[in-house]
């Protein structure tokens, strides 16, 4: 059981990295990855929302959705939107400084496909228990943070280097992301051997 949970965490974080291997959460990956500091904070906010969503999704999946399966999508998105709203209000109250730093990116977590994708995969594809789901969410959040921080550190360095003017901006970011993704492909099959 313990090893099982550990593999779920590792798999969501590295082997099936949400951003680089499954293309979820690309908007913050492209938008918030220009500074390492912002990237870390964004990652932490995501981990928090992911964890709460995982708990809510598990409750919905086990106690509500058996009676109304067609409501899955709608109920999940409502839960995510309200969780983000609550997080926003809590941060605003408890730490106004952090609130100002996160700015517009906090409400945008609602439309981060990683959150909804995690909730959907957790319940429909894998059918995890609550504990497994929690580890899955934390692993996914750590994976997002890892990808964001890696990308931000590379982008901070490319700012100073001499790249062709055509490639400046998104094209360069995407090609860097391709090489990061290639590197993460090396991890595939990591869990299957054991």
């Amino acid at each position, binding site marked *: 059981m313990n090893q099982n949970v550990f593999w779920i965490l590792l798999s969501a974080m590295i082997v099936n990295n949400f951003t680089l291997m499954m293309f979820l959460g690309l*908007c913050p990956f*492209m938008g918030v990855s220009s500074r390492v500091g912002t990237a870390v904070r964004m990652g932490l906010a995501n981990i928090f929302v992911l964890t709460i969503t995982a708990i809510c999704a598990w409750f919905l999946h086990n106690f509500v959705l058996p009676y109304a399966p067609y409501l899955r999508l709608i109920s999940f998105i*409502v839960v995510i939107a309200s969780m983000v709203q609550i997080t926003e209000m809590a941060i605003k109250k408890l730490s106004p400084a952090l609130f100002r730093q996160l700015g517009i990116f906090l409400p945008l977590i609602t439309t981060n496909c990683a959150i909804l*994708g995690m909730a959907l995969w957790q319940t429909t*594809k894998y059918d995890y228990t609550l504990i497994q789901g929690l580890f899955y969410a934390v692993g996914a959040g750590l994976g997002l943070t890892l990808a964001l921080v890696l990308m931000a550190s590379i982008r901070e360095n490319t700012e100073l280097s001499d790249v062709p003017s055509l490639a400046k901006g998104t094209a360069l970011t*995407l090609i860097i992301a391709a090489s990061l993704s290639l590197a993460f492909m090396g991890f595939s099959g990591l869990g299957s051997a054991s």
Partner: protein
Amino acid sequence: MKPTTPTADLVRGIWRENPVLIQLLGLCPALAVTNSVENALAMGIATFFVLLGSSVLVSSLKKWIPGEVRISTYILIIATFVTVADLGLEAFVPAIHKELGAFISLIVVNCMILGRQEAFASKRPVGRAALDAIGTGIGFLIAMVMMGGVREILGTGSFLGFSLFGPNYEPWVVMILPPGGFLTLGFLLLVLAWVERRRARSAKPDAAMSGAARPETARPDAGTPDRSAA
């Protein structure tokens, strides 16, 4: 918002403000399900349907949606249409539905759709909103098929399942794997930027020259004409 003609509403989203290639919205599906033309087409059509339906509904309900809860209302409307699309695909093309998996549900969080509601459908009459949705939807479909075409041709040597290069072609398997998605979009953007620069250069040689002479005044002049020409 300045008034526009119906044709401009329709055409704008197709190329000049293409949601994926120019505005870089809706990147998740554009990268995740474009490993074959068939998947890309199915995803594009589903998104088109959701965008059109929710634009029409948001535009016709705009008087009754309170400003404070508008985003949540839009999301709920979009989620309803996505559920319809999801169940529809499952009923008619179960094989493709299985292949696309949760990515159909993830149309809900496609920022392109929410963006069109917020920026256009909530402020315009129903007809215009529908035209805009059709234009943007076609633009998205074009971008999806371009990505899917490049990745399928290079990655498997076939197009829509028909073999193109014969048995001796060694497929670039990496193109249908995740890194290929990033790489294809990156190179598409590079090619677009290159074409844009060439056109700007050949269309306005004198504007570019005066831009070199008087950078403060000439730069906006050099920028605006090629936007309207494109």
